[in-house]
Each structure stands twice: as structure tokens, then as C-alpha cells.
């Protein structure tokens, strides 16, 4: 019996030891170990380069870049926020920033550069970039990391085959449709592929026509606005043309897949995908190029130009135990040097004004130089990505209605109404 007791005791002690060893984050080397959580594996090297530049100057700090896939990222981050074990630094997205900011889970970084220059943010980041890092209270909850735009990707060979001139900056929606028709007639390939996507689809058309998805107060929907409705109808009707596949097709084959398997000649793409598409489809190099978005020929208001611009930021928890060091790292991430390294790695267009070309120059290494400058040209009239606190609630409902209109289960008018309802009730429910 005594023996048994000893055995049990041993077991208990060893289990306790196991538990404790799991908890302690052995910093036996006397350095500060920081974790940096991101979701895009394509940017891992770029982020590592930025971290290396910092740790070179601060040898007492070690930063470990961790990648979690987008689909798991938010579940995981929310769990760490609840248990107060957030990574020291992490990427924040406009979809989620309001939630995290309003619940005090990410630190207010408005004063981050005060000792250096109280006007730092305003001097070096655009208004759109800054609104992407603001919480509901208007304060800055992240250091702007990058900014993006949406452009038109087209297949040069198909344009040549149909004897159509390549897209120019003066192109309008009419030119887009006309070229699509000609290419379809001449080659049998699809023209512009308009599918049920917001950021890479109808949002651009709505804002080009002078409409809006969210009203001025950022609470009410815009699907009852005539300009919005007209743009939506134009965009959704494109699938009725013979040169555009229908939503059934897109449910199985994304426009990107169709484009790079040479089934279609045009689609809208975010600049963040261009580099990996160059790398992933080497035998397509030279066959395609990019252009600015076609403009609306007769907008209800404005000049008919718009592109959706989103941006990520670096954020941290206000309760992290290495808060002061983390703040120093973040200051570096937002500095000219930190942003330049990011741009040169090709990861993304730096949010820092004046460094945009560092990203574009990365494309010099390919045999065919894409006209990626068009993505930079569009910042001039870019529109902030649509977002409010209730977006997670209405997003799925708006998507459902959109798909029901496409499949004919809902008339266009009823669909617009239910989308409008979804946005408005999401705010009322709170």
C-alpha cells in the first residue's frame, strides 16, 4: 500500500512538473522574446526581414514570426484575447478592428510617436490609411502597415486575337462591355468576369457611380440609394451577357482560376495577389497585364472614378507584459525604414507615403514588367473599404441575398430591400 502511495505521489509530482514546464516561457538567454502573429504565408519572409532589421539594432530582443491561416486566425486571436494571452504583436484587419478596439482588446496607439512628432501619423499616412486603423472613437488602434487597391487584370493575347486595343485609363464601363463582347465573339473566351464579390466586385461599381454601401453616419445601408441601385443592377446584369459566366460557374471556378487557365480575358484583382500570381503562373508571364479600373461613363455624382482601398495595421494588446518594448518595435514598424523593408520584400504596398514605388520596383525582376504603377495611380481617388461595427452580422445576410438574386430565388428589387434591411437591423439589434 505504501509503495502504491509513493507511486501515486510520484505521478502527481511529475504531472505538476510537466504542467509548470509548459507554462514558463524559458528566456534562459536573458533576452526578451516577442511573438508576432500574421495570416499570410506569402508575407512571412517580408515580415521576418522587418523584424531582423529591428533585432539587429536591439540584440536583446528576439521576435518570432508565426503564421496562422486566415480561417483560423480570428477564432484563435479571440480565444487569446479572452484568456489574456495575446501575441505581443499581430496583424489587424479592418473587418475586425472596431470590435477589438471597442472592447479594449487592442492598445490605443495614438500617442505612439508623440515624443518624436505629434503630427507623425498625419504627415506620413494617407487619410484612407488612417481611417482604416481608427476605432469607433476615432483614435488610432494600430500602426498602418500597408494599403491596397483593386485593378483590372487582362489577357493581352485574347485582346490581340479579337483585334481590340488594350484597356486605357480612359476606359469606361461601356468599353469594358464592348471589348468583352468582341473577345467572346472572336475567341469564344469569356470577357470581363463579374462575380458575387464585394471588395473585388460590386463595391467598386457602386462608388464609381456615386452610390454608397454605408451612409454618412456609417450605420445605415445605402441599398435604397438610387445611384447604388443603378450600379448594382448594372453589375449584376453583366452575368446575363453571353460573354460573362453565371454565378453557378463562379461557385466552382474562381475568376482568378478561370483567368490563369485562359478561359476568360478580364477580372478585378487586388494588388496583394499580383506578385504570387507572377510566381505561381510562370508560363503566363508576358501574356497578361494590369490597368486602372474602368470608370463610370455617366455617374450620378462625382467623376466616375473609384477603387476600394483597404489596409492592414500592426496592433498589440494593452495588457501585454512587454508593452514598452513592443511599443518601440511598433514605432520601428511604422518608421520610414521599417516600411521600406516591407515594400522592398514585395510583401505589400507600404502605407508610408512616398514609399509606394518600393513595392512596384519588385516587379523589375521578371522578364515581362507589369504596369503595376496603375495600382499606385489609383490611390488618388481610392475609397476606404466598407466597414462598420456590425459588418460581421450583416455580411452573411447581404451575401445570401446577393446569391438569391443571382439564382433567381429573389427579385432584384426585393433583394435590394433585404440587403438594406440586413444592414439597418444589425445596428438596431445591438
Amino acid at each position, binding site marked *: 500500500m505504501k509503495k502504491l502511495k509513493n507511486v501515486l505521489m510520484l505521478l502527481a509530482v511529475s504531472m505538476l512538473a510537466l504542467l509548470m514546464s509548459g507554462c514558463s516561457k524559458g528566456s534562459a538567454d536573458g533576452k526578451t522574446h516577442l511573438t508576432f502573429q500574421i495570416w499570410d504565408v506569402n508575407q512571412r519572409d517580408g515580415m521576418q526581414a522587418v523584424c531582423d532589421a529591428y533585432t539587429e539594432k536591439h540584440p536583446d530582443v528576439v521576435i518570432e514570426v508565426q503564421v496562422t491561416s486566415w480561417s483560423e486566425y480570428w*477564432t484563435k486571436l*479571440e480565444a487569446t*484575447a*479572452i484568456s489574456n494571452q495575446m501575441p505581443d504583436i499581430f496583424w489587424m484587419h479592418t473587418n475586425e478592428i472596431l*470590435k477589438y478596439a471597442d*472592447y479594449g*482588446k487592442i492598445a490605443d496607439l495614438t500617442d505612439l510617436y508623440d515624443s518624436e512628432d505629434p503630427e507623425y501619423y498625419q504627415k506620413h499616412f494617407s487619410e484612407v490609411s488612417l481611417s482604416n486603423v481608427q476605432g469607433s472613437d476615432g483614435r488610432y488602434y494600430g500602426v498602418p502597415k500597408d494599403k491596397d487597391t483593386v485593378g483590372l487584370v487582362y489577357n493581352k493575347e485574347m485582346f490581340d486575337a479579337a483585334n481590340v486595343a488594350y484597356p486605357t485609363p480612359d476606359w469606361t464601363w461601356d468599353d469594358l462591355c464592348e471589348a468583352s463582347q468582341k473577345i467572346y465573339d472572336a475567341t469564344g473566351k469569356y470577357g470581363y468576369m463579374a*462575380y*458575387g*464579390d464585394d471588395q473585388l466586385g460590386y463595391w467598386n461599381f457602386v462608388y464609381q457611380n456615386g452610390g454608397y454601401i454605408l451612409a454618412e453616419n456609417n450605420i445605415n445601408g445605402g441599398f435604397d440609394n438610387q445611384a447604388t441601385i443603378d450600379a448594382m443592377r448594372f453589375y449584376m446584369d453583366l452575368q446575363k451577357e453571353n460573354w460573362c459566366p453565371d*454565378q*453557378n*460557374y*463562379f*461557385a*466552382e*471556378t474562381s475568376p482568378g482560376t478561370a483567368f490563369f487557365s485562359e478561359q476568360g480575358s478580364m477580372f478585378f484583382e487586388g494588388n496583394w495577389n499580383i506578385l504570387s500570381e507572377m510566381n505561381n503562373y510562370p508560363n503566363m508571364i508576358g501574356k497578361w497585364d494590369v490597368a486602372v479600373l474602368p470608370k463610370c461613363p455617366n455617374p450620378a455624382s462625382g467623376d466616375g472614378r473609384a477603387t476600394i482601398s483597404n489596409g492592414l495595421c500592426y496592433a498589440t494588446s494593452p495588457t501585454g507584459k512587454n508593452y514598452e518594448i513592443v511599443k518601440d518595435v511598433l514605432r520601428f514598424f511604422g518608421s520610414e525604414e521599417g516600411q521600406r523593408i516591407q515594400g522592398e520584400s514585395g510583401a505589400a504596398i507600404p502605407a508610408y507615403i512616398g514609399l509606394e514605388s518600393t513595392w512596384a520596383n519588385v516587379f523589375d525582376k521578371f522578364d515581362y514588367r507589369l504596369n503595376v504603377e496603375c495600382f499606385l495611380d489609383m490611390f488618388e481617388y481610392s475609397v476606404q473599404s466598407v466597414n462598420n461595427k456590425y459588418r*460581421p*452580422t450583416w*455580411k*452573411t*445576410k447581404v*451575401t*445570401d441575398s446577393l*446569391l*438569391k438574386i*443571382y*439564382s433567381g*430565388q429573389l427579385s432584384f428589387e426585393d433583394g435590394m430591400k433585404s440587403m438594406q434591411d440586413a444592414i439597418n437591423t444589425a445596428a438596431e439589434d445591438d
Partner: protein
Amino acid sequence: MSNNTAKASKHAKSESMWGYIMVAPTIIGLLALNIYPFLDTIKLSFSKTRPFGLYELRGIENYIQMFASAEFWRANLNTIYFCLLTVPIGIFLSLVVAVMLNTKIKGRTFFRAVFFLPMVVAPAAVAMVWKWIFNTEYGIINTILAHKVNWITDPGIVMVTCAIVAIWSAIGYDAVLLLSGLQNISKSYYEAASLDGATKVQQFFHITLPMVSPTLFVVLIMRLMSSIKVYDLIYMMIEESNPALTSAQSLMYLFYRESFVAGNRGLGSSVVIWTVALIGLVTIVQFWGQKKWVNYEV
């Protein structure tokens, strides 16, 4: 004498203590991973949930909202339709397969392994492969049919497609269970029946079916439960951009979208509780109904 009983009870005590220690890992696991979360889900279903695990009790608000939503009733219909498609056909086919695998054919072990194979493959992989088979443009089925059927995107067909995949994945497992039931049937029944001139079909309906009915009952209960709970298959087969999404949305898929995409865990929990009640009800009906057809006498 009194000394003796004291000793015995001491012995019994230590024995029962060891009993508790032995079952502790399972019980603790069950309490921490099943019972506690279940109670928590009940609580959440009566609460307005907010991000980061915050919530406030609000009574039956979620249930009112749930019963008033067309989406919810649609999901119920979809789930019932899915059960009607998968359970009768699935079990019938499993029984046929089990009977065939029970006969003396060449390569019997090989066939048993083949039929069981879908069970060892991850559901995600199964769904991926089938998605390609059913692809409208390039899928092998449409190539053979020389016809462009929208297997995955037509709201009228999508559930049938999902049911085919579900049946295919479950046949092997059910057949193996039924096979074990079949092997318990003594050969002497068949010998006696064939001496009396019973045909193979008569033997099946009068000997095999009644004798295997207890196993069949277990398979039926399990298949129905998992059909009501169907989620992973539909999640993998149906993309967010699929126009047939609302026609394929099962109760558990609705729960997933409410809880984890829309972030409304309260409403999501109500859907779960409803589903649990539904499964309970169906199972009670089945236990009541089994008296009429399950034969426990050997």
C-alpha cells in the same frame, strides 16, 4: 467476527476507491469536455452574447428570433430532406453490401477493405474529390453524361448531391456493423429452411432480416443522428459564393454561420439546443417503434 467484517468493508472500500480512480479519467473528460460545455450552451442560448466571451441573460429572446426566422425553418426542411435521402437508401444499400460480403466470394477480404475505405479517409478529402467529380465544367460525371448538370450549384439538386456523397462515405461502416450481426446468425436456420424448400429471397426476409434486426436498429439510430447533425460534408462541398447555399444549409451549418461567421453565439446556441431536442425526439420515437419490428429472441 466483528473484526472480520470490518476488514471486509475496508477491503470493499479500497476496491470502490480504485474503481473511482479507474473511471476518473473518462468521467473527468466527460464532465469537462461534454457536460460542462453542454450546460454552458444552454445558458448561452438564453443570453445576448457579445464578443470576447461576454454575455448577458435575456430569457427566450433568441428562441423567439429563431422561430421567427425563415432561414431557420428552411434549415429544418433541408435537414429533414437530407435524412430522408440518406437514411433509407443508405441503410438499404449497406444491408445489401453486408449480405453480399457475407457470402463466399473470391477476394472477400479485399472487398470488405474497399467498402470500409471511405471511413478511414478524412471527410475533407472525400468532399474535395467529389467536388471535382461533380464539377459542372470539368467533372467526370458531366463528361460521361455529355450534359451540363449543375450538381453543386442548382438549388434543386444540391441536396441530392450531398446525399450521394454521404451515403457513399457511410456504407462501409454500416455494412461492417451489419456484417457482424449477420455472422452471429447460426447456419442451422438456413439449413433447416432450405430443407423445407425456402428460396434465397424467402430466407432473407424470414431469417436474415429478423435475426439482424437488433444490429439494424443500432445502425438506424446512429445513421439518423449523424444525418441530423450533418455539417462537415456540406461545409466542404458548398462555398460561400454558391447560389445554392440556402438550399443546402443544414441546422448545424446554420449554427456554424450564426456563431462563427456572424458572431451571434446566443442564437447559434439556440439552434444547437433545438437540434439536440430534435435528435432526442426522433430517438424516443425510434425506441418506441422498435418494439414492433426488432426481434431480440434468438
